[in-house]
């Protein structure tokens, strides 16, 4: 299978397959259960360290665990919002990315060139900058004749995140199609299939299997990147964690709170990574 080209995005956005390459060796050595124990252990330890650091405090204060439990539902709700944003961005990014990816292999030169340019542009821009760009580019409401559609910040944020997703999906689609040997096109052409038929009936069904693992990988990366929206003033789990910490005003809470947030994302993204790996293995056997 042809590896998708690497790009030069920052670590946060390391795209598609290469990001997961070191994991198999790691997981054979540390089984997932052991990994979970270590993480939960680390969490408890972080509470312990914080508790020890604050042991000298004079006033009696509620325990760290009590404070965590008090805020957990709110932050958890914020986390669900992050998930909702990730799903919406992924849906929009996937739909537009598939079109852009197909556009890149279009027989029409101008369509191919424009698609290529858009893909390269959005794939090689920092996600945070794109997010700011969209926040300020789009108006706060859209006037369609007599109809006025409000464009809330969360909606703009979804679009802002969907743009880099679109470009990465476009590359996944293009790479998947290119990974199917040219001889498949040739033999289908000889059987008098039209270009469209070849693409939809012969090439894409084969390429689809190969696109799924990098696509899921991209989704996991997007989910983690949704915390960027806190920077543009949207109340996600990150903003709420910060707000909770400000409200409590206790330094010893920082480590446990951010560890809790990390664990929420980890609990969601790690199974996706595992599933991606097993799918990758299955696809690798199939071909």
């Amino acid at each position, binding site marked *: 299978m042809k590896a998708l080209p690497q790009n030069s995005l920052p670590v946060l956005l390391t795209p598609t397959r290469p990001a997961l390459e070191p994991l198999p060796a790691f997981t054979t050595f540390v089984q997932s259960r052991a990994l979970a124990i270590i993480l939960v252990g680390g969490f408890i330890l972080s509470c312990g360290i914080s508790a020890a650091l604050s042991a000298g405090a004079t006033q009696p204060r509620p325990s760290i665990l009590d404070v965590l439990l008090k805020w957990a539902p709110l932050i958890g709700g914020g986390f669900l919002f992050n998930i909702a944003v990730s799903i919406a961005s992924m849906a929009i990014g996937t739909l537009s990315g598939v079109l852009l990816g197909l556009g890149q292999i279009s027989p029409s030169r101008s369509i191919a060139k424009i698609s290529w340019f858009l893909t390269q542009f959005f794939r090689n821009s920092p996600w945070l900058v794109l997010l700011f760009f969209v926040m300020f580019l789009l108006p706060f409401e859209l006037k369609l004749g007599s109809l006025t559609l409000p464009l809330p910040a969360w909606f703009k944020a979804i679009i802002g995140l969907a743009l880099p997703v679109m470009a990465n999906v476009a590359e996944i689609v293009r790479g998947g199609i290119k990974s199917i040997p040219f*001889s*498949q096109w*040739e*033999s*289908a*052409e*000889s*059987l*008098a*299939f*039209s270009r469209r*038929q070849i693409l939809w*009936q*012969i090439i894409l*069904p*084969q390429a689809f299997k190969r696109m799924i693992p990098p696509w899921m990988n991209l989704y996991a990366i997007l989910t983690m990147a949704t915390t960027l929206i806190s920077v543009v003033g949207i109340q996600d789990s990150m903003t709420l964690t910060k707000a909770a910490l400000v409200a409590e005003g206790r330094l010893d809470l920082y480590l446990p709170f951010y560890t809790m947030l990390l664990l929420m994302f980890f609990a969601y993204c790690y199974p996706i990574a595992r599933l991606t790996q097993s799918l990758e293995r299955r696809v690798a056997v199939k*071909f």
Partner: protein
Amino acid sequence: MLGQPLIEIDHVEKSFHNTVVLRDISMKITKGECACIIGPSGSGKSTLLRCINALVPVSRGSIIVDGIQVNDPNLDKLALRRKVGIVFQQYNLFPHKTAIQNIAMAPINVLGRPKEESYERARQLLAKVKLSEKADAYPGELSGGQQQRVAIARSLAMNPLVMLFDEVTAALDPETKKEVLYTIRDLAAEGMTCILVTHEMGFASEVADHVYFTDGGMIVESGTPTDIFKAAQNDRTRAFLSQVL
């Protein structure tokens, strides 16, 4: 039927960028004829076959297949390809479809035939290439020889006027080679017009009506199998044959 050629190749030239692959090729192939093209690798044999079904456009000259001008810029490629079947060295079956689906796919989607009828015909063709029991096997589960026979059946399903075979046994071991060669021999015996590019000299002398020896993008010598294999006139032909016979 004789007299009017089914395929007429007239002074065809083909170059890729600066590389000349076909220099000056002319051939006439009548209906029911089996023509074998032999010659060293790189002499343009495969390119010639690909020119006949317009996978590769010719640079100069003319090709007519059953009245269709192949070198016409407004060529209806799909109409041409319905008349010309081609089988490749590497089989090129669709790996995500079973043997029978591979065969029935083009008749259903390209010719718009009913499903039932197409599958029935696919079953007949599988029986013809002696693979009835492999109908539901995926290409990955078949041997090279079996895949190649499915590929032949897949081409036949389009009811082509002519079949092109591009070194179809080159990737096979001697035993499976035989299965495929017998299939082609039967086809030729039934009167299918065939053009074979092959390195199987014994087979060529057995089935061919006409043998063409190509080298350097030109037809060096042509004639009946006896002319070529027993009494070649050209030194280049004799040198080549002495290496392979």
